């Protein structure tokens, strides 16, 4: 699309040869002028803060550069467990969300009955802040427990709240729309004729799904999985609200270090460790995001 615009400029240039260089420079300057605000904001609020965290993480007790913060983290099994918990929870969440969202997205694309309602159910939670959603989940799970107890189905309340299970339930609930929408974006692009062709070649519904739909849904699945994993590992309020004090994740540790214990450098180090560990994913997703832009227009 950018090509189209630049097609016009050279034509005009040819008609007025002296103005060639000026006009091309003008459009380049214009380009930078347009980008300037976001470049400045990004520099100030993205690049600089990132460096600040990095700087603080190397801040020694007596000033100066030191690795003691990282040493403190890696030297204590307690903290390592938190890291493991975070990654494990994110992984479990991603798998569960993918398994649940795939049929949902596929059905949304192929059976659009009551599509408005389905989209409403998928998107409206995103209009409400996470605290409300997790709060509602807490009340709901408590009520479920009460109900099951009353019915005599269980003897003691299920560990749904303030537990690892609770965190997973909360994370899946929060991340589900992102995964579903990402998969839907891929699946909805699948041409009907491909599925019909498979049917004429003898594929039953199951084979059509495995051989045609799944492979073509892969891009969406990948995007969704990355979003979910990074979202789950970086989430503060879900583990904070659903984990009780038993299970702590890295973001919670960061917040606690900074707010409750006033240990900013340590908190910074924890944040750096988290980002570094999920870095490969971030790199992959940023590459996807960059190349995705090309495919966009």
């Amino acid at each position, binding site marked *: 699309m950018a090509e189209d615009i630049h097609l016009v400029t050279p034509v005009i240039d040819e008609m007025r040869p002296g103005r060639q260089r000026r006009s091309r420079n003008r459009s380049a300057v214009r380009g930078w002028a347009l980008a300037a605000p976001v470049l400045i904001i990004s520099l100030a609020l993205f690049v600089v803060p990132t460096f600040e965290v990095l700087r603080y993480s190397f801040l020694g007790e007596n000033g100066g550069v030191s690795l003691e913060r990282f040493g403190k983290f890696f030297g204590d099994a307690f903290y390592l467990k938190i890291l493991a918990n975070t990654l494990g929870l994110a992984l479990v969440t991603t798998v569960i969300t993918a398994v649940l969202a795939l049929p949902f997205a596929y059905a949304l694309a192929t059976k659009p009955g009551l599509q408005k309602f389905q989209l409403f159910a998928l998107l409206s939670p995103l209009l409400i802040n996470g605290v409300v959603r997790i709060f509602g989940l807490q009340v709901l799970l408590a009520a479920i427990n009460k109900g099951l107890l009353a019915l005599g189905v269980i003897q003691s309340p299920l560990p749904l709240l303030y537990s690892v299970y609770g965190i997973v339930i909360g994370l899946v609930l929060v991340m589900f729309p992102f995964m579903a929408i990402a998969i839907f974006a891929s699946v909805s692009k699948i041409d009907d004729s491909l599925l*019909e062709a*498979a049917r*004429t070649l003898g594929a039953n519904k199951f084979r059509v799904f495995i051989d045609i739909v799944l492979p073509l849904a892969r891009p969406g699945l990948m995007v969704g999985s990355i979003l979910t994993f990074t979202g789950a590992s970086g989430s503060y309020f879900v583990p904070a609200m659903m984990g009780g004090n038993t299970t702590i994740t890295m973001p919670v540790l960061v917040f606690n270090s900074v707010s409750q214990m006033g240990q900013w450098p340590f908190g910074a180090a924890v944040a750096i460790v988290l980002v570094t560990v999920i870095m490969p994913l971030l790199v992959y997703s940023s590459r996807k995001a960059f190349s995705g832009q090309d495919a966009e227009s």
Partner: protein
Amino acid sequence: MDTNGNADGKNDYLQIREVFKVYGGGGGVRSVSVGVGRGDMLVLLGPSGCGKTTLLRAIAGLAEVDSGTVSVGGDDITRAPTHRRNVGMVFQTWALFPHMTVAKNVGYGLRMQGVDRAEIDERVATALAMVRMDQFADRKPKQLSGGQQQRVALARAIVTQPRVLLLDEPLSSLDYRIRVSLRSELRRLQKSLGVTGVYVTHDYSEALALGDRIAVMRDGVIVELGTPREIFVRPRHRYTAEFLNVGNLLQCRQVDASDDVVRVEVLGQTISLERDGATTGPVEWLCLPHRAARIGGPGQRLTGRLSEVEYEAGGAVCTVMLDDAGVEIVCHQELDADTTLEVGGSVQVSLDLSEAFPVLDEPTAGAMLREQMTVEEIGS
């Protein structure tokens, strides 16, 4: 009686009987019955919305019929799901699986049939060689041109040895030259494999090149059914003559009729026509082939004004508004170096009315068609 030289003389390998498929928003087919002989190609010809694609999809099982039956080789497949019908289908957009190589695409149907690996490889190679795409076995569809994708789609549809081959306007997205060359390749392939086929198109030159029989469709019904020669040289129905641009359509008035001769008055003249055995109602329309109308030329002349000239290779298509009759005549005119055609000028048109033949309008043709079918069934 068999009109297409079919060996067993029957048009009944693929049988469609009284199929109804109506859509809420319009379109679909209403009580369509037609048969296709084994190894023959039936072409469904008509404008968009005439129901030809609906009918094709009904044969494929991609659309469920409201009523009627579809049977192949004696088996009723009307309620069978698509994946059990063993039909090969070539789609307008080719529908090649983008995530599979050419070889995997072509082999997919065989995988579904449970054929073993070695045989799949062999048959895929043979099929690809048949469409001259064997060099491209490991490419992905997006690396191929339109014509190449088309050939792969064809290979994929035939490798499973389907009972019926269905083609949904497969050439319409291709360039003219490729279309023409693929057309003849398609016909050769179909004949050499002896596979029964149904081809949907809106392009009558495709229909004439590919079909053993052509069904001209409009608004969900078959208006006329016949061989290419019958349809194009002597169409029975006015709509067919119009759609295929066979000639000028002239309104006439029947003066009298006997067993074998009908006399009609047209353009101020009275002429006699041979009576067609199957014609029942009065003759109201005549078709005059374009070549029988000429500017200048021998015979009786009518004056008119030249309103349009469109040049083409070797000649021109001239539209003349006749003075007396107030009717437009289109002539395909040969041009030589000195002929000048002035738009707006007065010209003399000569019409060879001996070439005219009657064509029928709406209700009559329907009745006539049913009559024709009954005659066929009794005959075979």
